[in-house]
């Protein structure tokens, strides 16, 4: 009996040595990659710089994708595939709003059905926002019927406004000027009040308040009038509209659908499949509205490429990198420095407990979905301007964001930034000796290597 069983040697399968071997192999791989890059740089420094710049330009998009993705994932712990559709929606939104005034309007699209759908989404979301805000503030003081009809009327107004906006994209700058004016006024008022409080202890006296209000109103009006006379700004306005709409769809999806699926779901895979259904549906509608052929977006931030030590980079790409860094800073501040960020992290740690301690988890998560979708939409728009838009871009961008966030370390915003740029650089250096068409393969091989040797990514979630 004993002899038969002794065939299992006590030194068999030394896990610690296995661990060490894996580490050695990982180290060797990293060293080999570094050596390859160094060799390439030595061979042709100019080209290496060019590839690096390209890598950073693509990486900026991936970083934005990864940030939003990781924010959503680390809050609800399932992979939301709508995220890919949000990227496509963002890019196609810009195309939708601008299609009439470039390429001679040959691909101009405007469909009442689409306008209605987004008007409804906007109405629903604004109704929800008003309800959440007002309900808290005034529910004890106001008559519920009055409150509800007020919310309903306002929401309907927002819906009609959105519908009109989408139906008349030529007039985008005119129609948006009051909104921008009010936003500028509000921002100016807040800034002025803060500044005055800091300077003077008597800032609360009414003449000063009136003065501040007047200055803010003037600033808002000026901004509005300037905008109304500047049709060139329409492209950049369409970015904003597109992002907000994609975000609203994300929010509406969470509040209107995912909440209920999650309440019944027994595993994150159910959520994944449900969001897969959403992705399929939205992609199908994109093809129906826009056809499946690739489309260009109008030139944004034109001008000749910048030359850096023999390599060239488009001004637009520099803008993209800047946007990624700004997006990172904003998200970092939001998550680390605000009460909202604290709530987000608390929900990520334990949703049930967060609910018990009084965090309105549904509201917080819905806002997280809004923010995530906006990041995806920004990335989609950047990609669209850089290359072209096509219906399957959503799925591909989703994959890239997913990979970048895994490489960086799922659930870690810093990791998402690093992972995004790392993926961009890996892709670009990977296709140096291959051809550009292999970059998706390079990305997935990189993913598998990372998962095998650094399963928690570059920066693990703390």
């Amino acid at each position, binding site marked *: 009996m004993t002899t038969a069983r002794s065939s299992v040697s006590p030194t068999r399968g030394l896990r610690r040595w296995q661990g060490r071997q894996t580490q050695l192999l990982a180290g060797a791989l990293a060293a080999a990659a570094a050596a390859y890059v160094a060799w390439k740089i030595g061979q042709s420094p100019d080209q290496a710089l060019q590839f690096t710049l390209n890598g950073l330009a693509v990486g900026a998009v991936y970083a934005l994708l990864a940030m939003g993705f990781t924010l959503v994932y680390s809050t609800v712990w399932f992979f939301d595939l709508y995220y890919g559709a949000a990227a496509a929606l963002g890019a196609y939104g810009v195309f939708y709003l601008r299609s009439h005034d470039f390429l001679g309007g040959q691909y101009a699209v405007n469909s009442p059905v689409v306008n209605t759908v987004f008007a409804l989404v906007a109405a629903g979301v604004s109704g929800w926002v008003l309800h959440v805000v007002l309900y808290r503030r005034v529910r004890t003081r106001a008559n519920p019927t009055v409150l509800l009809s007020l919310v309903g009327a306002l929401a309907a107004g927002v819906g009609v406004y959105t519908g009109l906006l989408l139906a008349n994209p030529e007039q985008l700058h005119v129609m948006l000027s009051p909104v921008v004016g009010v936003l500028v006024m509000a921002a100016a008022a807040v800034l002025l009040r803060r500044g005055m409080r800091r300077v003077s202890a008597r800032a609360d006296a009414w003449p000063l308040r009136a003065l501040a209000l007047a200055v803010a109103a003037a600033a808002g009006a000026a901004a509005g009038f300037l905008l109304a006379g500047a049709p060139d700004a329409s492209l950049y306005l369409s970015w904003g509209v597109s992002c907000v709409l994609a975000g609203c769809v994300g929010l509406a999806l969470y509040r209107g659908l995912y909440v209920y699926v999650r309440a019944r779901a027994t595993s994150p*895979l159910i959520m994944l499949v449900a969001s897969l259904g959403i992705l399929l549906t939205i992609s199908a509608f994109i093809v129906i509205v826009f056809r499946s052929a690739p489309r260009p977006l109008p030139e944004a931030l034109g001008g000749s490429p910048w030359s850096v030590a023999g390599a060239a980079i488009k001004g637009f790409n520099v803008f993209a990198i800047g946007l990624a860094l700004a997006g990172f800073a904003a998200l970092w501040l939001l998550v680390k420095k605000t009460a909202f960020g604290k709530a987000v992290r608390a929900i990520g740690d334990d949703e049930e407990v967060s609910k018990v301690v009084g965090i309105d988890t549904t509201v917080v998560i819905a806002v997280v979905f809004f923010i995530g979708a906006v990041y995806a939409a920004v990335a989609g728009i950047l990609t669209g301007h850089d290359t072209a838009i096509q219906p399957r871009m959503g799925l591909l961008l989703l994959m890239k964001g997913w990979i970048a966030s895994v490489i960086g370390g799922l659930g870690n915003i810093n990791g998402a930034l690093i992972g995004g740029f790392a993926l961009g650089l890996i892709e670009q250096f990977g296709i140096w000796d291959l051809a550009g068409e292999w970059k998706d393969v390079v990305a997935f091989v990189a993913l598998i290597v990372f998962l095998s040797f650094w399963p928690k990514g570059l920066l693990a979630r703390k």
Partner: protein
Amino acid sequence: MTALARRAFQPGELRRRAAAGDVKLWASLLILVWAAVFMIWQGLGFAISIGSVFAIWAILAVSLNLVVGYAGLLSVGHIGFFGIGAYAAAILTSNASYEQLRTEAIPTFAWPFFAALPVSIALVGVAAVVVGVVLNRFRDDIYVLVSFGFAIIAFNVFLNGRGLTRGAFGVHQIARPAIGGWELTGELEFLILLLVFLALTVAVSWLIVTSSFGRVLTAIREDEQAIEVFGYRATHYKLAIWVISAMLAGLAGALFASWTSFIDPNSFILLESVLLVSIVILGGLASIWGSLLGAMAFVLLEEGMRFLPFLPAEYVGQARQAVLGILLVLLMLFRPQGLVGRYRL
């Protein structure tokens, strides 16, 4: 199992279940009646043309269900094996002379179909072992991601490996199967061949899932760690079913290549794989009958939409995709095991 089956066939049982609103029964009935109405309405020619599409999707769905439904591995990369099987069979049996076409030249083998079939399936098996070993390291969400990756890598190889696949030009003149001197050129003859292979696939799958192996698979799906404590090496089981399932998909691919006689990478895009997963989930996880139903519903959905007056013909595919997406959401909300499934994700 047997006890359950015995009870199901007791007299009056069907009527009782129908009266009790049994979703499985009603879903099956609905889809079968739908299919029958179509057959009678559109005639035999129609049945033959959509029958082949159905058979190919059904082989794929049944094979994928072995992995997704029984082993609990949500793989979205199955189309890759379908593609490898199709390309292997296509390249081996194609008798076009590519030197004359002045595009990418690939060697001409011009094998007979039934010689190429086992080779193609074996090639798929080898590829499946490699992919399976990699995939076995992951689970849940990451498994889905890496399986997406496999589908994308396979598609890129089909598209960009021009020396092997002629890239976007595709492979032409793929041979139809011949039995003795009799070449199956007719649609009806080919449909019969497809149905024979579908029956074979169903039989093999049924044997697998009713064997001890199948029972262990379901246990792995439920709790991999727990079943390991009882002496089963879960990784070996998962790899084995993965390879078997991939080889069945490869079979479907080879049949598909021969059926269309021309293939290019567009048949193997990621979206097709996603649709395939949707079919399996729609029909029902861990149920062979479910996969057949799912494939049938999928094909009927497209054909049914052709008759919608307000839907332009070029949007039928998209409309089907949208409906399938909405169905997936509804299923996840109300019936996560699919129409007739026995496993909730």
